[in-house]
């Protein structure tokens, strides 16, 4: 795919944690955004503070882009490892930027017609005094800006604004370095991307899902936010704590997730809109108290931003793996609402909506986000986020009527609420089963019929929820060849896959679910009953949503398009798997060549020294093995002499044997 204005240019920046590439990426993204382009960035990083491998992709386009895209048009690498990992991805016609003092190109890995553009960074930085290593990226950035045909003046402005609070000195130095790179590119005949950009010059907010969600919470009347740091939810905490006073939200970092949710429940009992945020492991710790909130009928919103599991798993990688957990959280049956925002804008409104639903139905509401949605920044339209949102506090009474009963058994299950502090009544919110007044019936007052009716009262609240939720609708033609069903953050990639499929001559449509509990059972059944083939797309290994869909609607999707390696879907991955489905091709879990190569790199990093790398890979059957094997030749980086052969099982992925040459 060639770069173009509408589908965009995709640039990648790769290096190690601590290399400062987030700042570099930010400058680029802001420049583009100020020029009026749409930007969507995704940073693939590791659970390590310095070192490791960071892989930032930024997609720039005139029209709105909804995902980080497929192709790679330009690559900036900050070290050798990064070059070897990504250079093969650069599209023909693309370019690679690197510091020629630190990185050596590997032509055999490159595709045709890729420009190699090494800059003499040390030399170019010389005139500007003692420059810290992390600042040298600015030189490469400058060259990239030239390639992108961006106006340098805008970048100058961005740098000035960014470093204004630090020092004009640093702003100046950064600008000079970038300019040097820009000029060097110009002078050394770098061939620019060749697009005639129509810069809109509208300034757009460039926000992450977590920032949008945090702002939405403020707009929705959240007054209390508790959290314990946990990737990828932490940045909600960071944003709110930084804006706490301005936004009027009391933010509490608690000692653990048990405290987080129980504090939020306490705040809710006192009458404020309360929210907590975490990821899967923290949510597991919260699960007992989710049931508590339901039993006390305390409105509370919990954000679970998912990451790769199980257990600690992949703390900095994305996944949609906690649906089962959220569906099963806590003992017993109880009313609760679960929603999965599908993009950044939606994250804003979801937070506010969740707070309304929580109070209206006096129950816990869970927002299922994930690392992709939480952490990726994208440009929004200036009008996307509206401040004035309805705040529906539900059946909240300012005064206690005579004979007030906190847990009154009403026909809709909703019992009018008064808040502690209200004169004229008192009550206890009890986690034991209780009567209408709140007296527990688990002890001396044991009463099976009362228990039955109170249990039904709580559950009955669920009947009122669905009518308030916007039903899902099918995007694309009714009679498509295949229906892609997704939920949550995969929306953007699936949407684009549908377009790609159309280009490949396949008519697909797209059903996306935001509300998971309650479920628009009838709508979905009706929509899907018209589908010719159903493929559920999700970021996990077992098809958790597909199981939910079956359990809710009785419809078993014939196909699953799954990804569970920690990375978000690219549209083309969905397209390819959809094509295979349409063509009836079987799906295999075998190890592909590029995967075997990565596995070989891992073996090298752990067991062999950095002086070798994998060269050729051949897939062969072996006598002693029932499964085929990737014979991977390992060569010396400098001499290309063969160091040995590594055998990798092409089915299981096991590293079978290292045969030194």
């Amino acid at each position: 795919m060639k770069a173009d204005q509408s589908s965009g240019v995709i640039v990648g920046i790769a290096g190690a944690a601590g290399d400062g590439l987030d700042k570099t990426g930010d400058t680029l993204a802001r420049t583009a955004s100020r020029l009026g382009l749409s930007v969507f960035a995704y940073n693939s990083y590791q659970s390590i503070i310095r070192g490791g491998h960071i892989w930032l992709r930024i997609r720039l386009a005139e029209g709105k882009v909804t995902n980080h895209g497929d192709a790679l048009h330009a690559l900036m690498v900050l070290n050798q490892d990064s070059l070897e990992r990504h250079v093969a991805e650069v599209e023909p016609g693309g370019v690679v930027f690197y510091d020629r003092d630190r990185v050596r190109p590997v032509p055999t890995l490159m595709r045709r017609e890729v420009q190699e553009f090494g800059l003499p960074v040390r030399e170019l930085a010389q005139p500007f005094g003692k420059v810290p290593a992390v600042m040298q990226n600015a030189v490469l950035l400058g060259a990239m800006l030239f390639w992108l045909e961006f106006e340098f003046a805008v970048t100058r402005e961005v740098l000035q604004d960014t470093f204004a609070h630090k020092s004009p000195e640093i702003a100046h130095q950064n600008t000079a370095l970038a300019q040097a790179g820009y000029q060097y590119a110009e002078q050394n005949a770098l061939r620019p991307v060749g697009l005639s950009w129509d810069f809109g010059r509208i300034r757009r907010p460039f926000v992450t899902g977590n920032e949008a969600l945090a702002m939405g919470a403020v707009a929705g009347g959240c007054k209390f936010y508790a959290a314990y740091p946990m990737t990828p939810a932490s940045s909600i905490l960071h944003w709110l704590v930084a804006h706490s006073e301005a936004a009027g939200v009391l933010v509490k970092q608690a000692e653990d997730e048990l405290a987080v949710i129980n504090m939020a429940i306490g705040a809710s009992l006192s009458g404020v809109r309360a929210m907590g945020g975490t990821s899967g492991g923290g949510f597991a710790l919260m699960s007992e108290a989710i049931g508590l909130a339901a039993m006390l009928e305390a409105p509370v919103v919990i954000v679970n931003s998912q990451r790769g599991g199980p257990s600690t798993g992949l703390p900095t990688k994305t996944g949609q793996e906690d649906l089962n957990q959220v569906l099963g959280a806590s003992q017993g049956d109880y009313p609760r609402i679960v929603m999965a925002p599908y993009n950044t804008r939606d994250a804003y409104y979801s937070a506010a909506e969740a707070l309304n639903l929580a109070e209206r139905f006096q129950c816990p509401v869970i927002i299922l986000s994930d690392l992709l949605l939480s952490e990726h920044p994208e440009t929004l339209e200036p009008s996307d986020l509206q401040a004035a949102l309805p705040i529906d506090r539900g059946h909240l009474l300012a005064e206690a009527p005579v004979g007030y009963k906190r847990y009154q058994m009403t026909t809709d299950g909703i019992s009018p609420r008064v808040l502690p502090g209200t004169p004229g009544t008192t009550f206890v919110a009890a986690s034991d089963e209780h009567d209408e007044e709140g007296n527990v019936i688990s002890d001396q007052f044991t009463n099976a019929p009362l228990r039955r009716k109170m249990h039904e009262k709580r559950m009955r609240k669920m009947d009122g929820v669905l009518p308030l939720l916007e039903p899902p609708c099918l995007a694309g033609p009714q009679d498509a060849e295949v229906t892609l069903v997704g939920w949550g953050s995969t929306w953007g990639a699936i949407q684009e896959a549908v377009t790609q499929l159309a280009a490949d001559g396949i008519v697909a449509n797209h059903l996306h679910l935001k509300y998971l509990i309650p479920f628009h059972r009838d709508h979905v059944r009706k929509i899907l009953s018209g589908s010719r083939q159903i493929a559920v797309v999700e970021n996990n290994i077992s098809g958790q949503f597909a199981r939910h869909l079956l359990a809710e609607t009785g419809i078993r999707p014939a196909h699953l398009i799954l990804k569970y390696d920690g990375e978000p879907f690219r549209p083309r991955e969905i397209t390819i798997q959809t094509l295979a489905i349409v063509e009836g091709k079987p799906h295999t879990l075998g190890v592909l060549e590029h995967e075997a190569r990565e596995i070989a790199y891992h073996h090298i990093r752990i067991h062999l020294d950095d002086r070798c790398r994998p060269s050729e890979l051949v897939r062969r059957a072996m006598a002693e093995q029932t499964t085929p094997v990737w014979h991977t030749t390992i060569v010396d980086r400098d001499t290309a002499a063969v160091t040995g052969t590594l055998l990798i099982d092409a089915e299981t992925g096991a590293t079978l044997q290292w045969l030194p040459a």
Partner: protein
Amino acid sequence: MSDALKIDDFKGPVHPDWCPGCGDYGVLKALKEAAVALQIPPHKLMVVSGIGCSSNLPGFINAYGAHTLHGRAVPVASGARLANTDLHVVITGGDGDGYGLGLGHLIHAMRRNLNLTYIVMDNQIYGLTTGQTSPTSMLSHRTKTTPRGNVEQPINPIGLALISGATYVARGFSGNPKQLTELIAGGISHAGLALIDVFSPCVTWNKVNTYAWFRERVYDLSQEGHDPANWSVAMEKALQWGDRIPTGLIYQTYRPTYEEAEPVLGKGPLVAQDLGINQSLLDQFLAETM
């Protein structure tokens, strides 16, 4: 004076479900007396508990309350208090609840110094679950789960409170209701976290630490010229156990409460503040990202 609150104003909706003779009756009574002494109207009082015999207390007093999860009363109470600083928030629970499952929360709450009063009905046993060893069960105590005698050194709640920054640390005995009332009233009046560990005998499961056992041993610090401002002496008292066991106000000090240090509460109780955002503030937030 005619409309002053009386103890009957705090009478709960139902009779307690405790065993006859349970120490918790004395604590309930003392809490009501303290509320009367401080003339706190029932609707301004919020009693939060975990799970256990002792944790059933909120159901037996006329006040707002929450009867939450085993071990989680402290965070629920913390949230309730932060959200409405007009409420007097009292936590009531057991030794298992507070010093077992809930120990971490307690220590963090003490260093946080929220304005909460925590009354632990310490019967050195798990009452409601029928007599297992608790974190304060004495060494060698034979319980249902330590048939050969407990081998784990008991928690020292007073010492933990002192080292963790609690600003009001006291010990009561439900056999001494007058002192207990004063300690509770003192705790509620105190600005900051008050921990009141109360010997509250379990007449059913703990046949060792009975009323008689305590009566023989407890003495009142206030009658021995104890200076509750002196941390080191307080720590000495915390270590005293055996023939003589101190009760009374062991330590009290002042440092800013968490509420005082929280700027958002400068605008008054959270529950009374405005909700939502206006477009100009939102635009300002968005501008930061451009």
